[in-house]
């Protein structure tokens, strides 16, 4: 076996265990997605029954990106400035259970509200993908909106601003 003369000049490749806090950023760079997934100062936690189904739902249907997925009971997603934490209640460590044993659950009515350009088109596309909605498009003051459900039954509001929205909302 002959060795190339240049081999002597090549630097050895040493596998390095990345520090945990940089691992997610490195992974995204390796995957070629360029800029690290980061957001602003808004953070929301949702409880989900099935983490795989939730991550797939938010990333495939609503343009979220996965930033961290360190355990079977937790994931951190981003969409713009929104950081969405997905937690599976009542995991082995009893994470998020209350001192009296109450276990959190998905559902309720409080929700993130995502702006879309064309609500009718978006709803049609999501319905074709099998996404469930709690209602039909409702028209309010300066906004049209609809409530969809993630696989665990958590509500997500989609809205499209209408005339007068910007003067009122900003």
């Amino acid at each position, binding site marked *: 076996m002959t060795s190339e003369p240049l081999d002597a000049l090549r630097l050895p490749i040493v596998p390095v265990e990345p520090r945990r*806090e940089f691992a997610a950023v490195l992974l995204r760079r390796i995957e070629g997605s360029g800029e690290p997934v980061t957001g602003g*100062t808004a953070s*929301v*936690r949702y409880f989900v029954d099935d983490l795989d189904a939730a991550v797939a739902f938010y990333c495939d249907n609503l343009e979220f990106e996965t930033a961290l997925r360190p355990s079977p009971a937790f994931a951190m997603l981003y969409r*713009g400035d929104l950081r969405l934490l997905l937690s599976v209640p009542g995991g082995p460590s009893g994470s998020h259970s209350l001192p009296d044993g109450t276990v959190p659950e998905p559902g309720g009515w409080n929700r993130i*509200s995502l702006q879309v350009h064309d609500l009718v088109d978006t709803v049609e596309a999501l319905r074709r993908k099998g996404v469930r909605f709690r209602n039909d498009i409702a028209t309010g003051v300066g*906004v049209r*909106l609809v409530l969809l459900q993630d696989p665990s039954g958590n509500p997500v509001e989609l809205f499209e601003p209408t005339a007068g929205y910007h003067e009122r*909302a900003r």
Partner: protein
Amino acid sequence: MSTVSVRYIVDDVDAAIAFYCGRLGFQELMHPDPAFAMLTRGDLRLVLGSPIGPDHRGGGSRPMPDGRKQEPGGWNRIMLEVPDLGAAVEALRGQGASFRNDIVTGVGVKQILLEDPSGNPVELFEPIRPEARLENR
């Protein structure tokens, strides 16, 4: 300008405005209707709506077509970062705020679950690892 929007259903919009603005550093953007207000804190816009009838001009907190009414509560929540959780909790307790639990230390954060006057949860957290910190502050 806030870029992220969250809607909370509350029983009493005025009481909610006093709570979020008076205790948690939100600012009121608008309160054009007794059943509706919009607050802001950093990148978060918090839209407060109280349950309304099907014919109300507001669209966000009407009942569903099957008659189900929207209501406060549940477990999903906004998360607000504070620099010193112990001090924040003590100050809030001093103001009569109610909590669902005591401070819990997790993997990346210390956290606690506060309740607004309608019983909606608000998670307060103090990062104990760098990646748990909210970025671009």
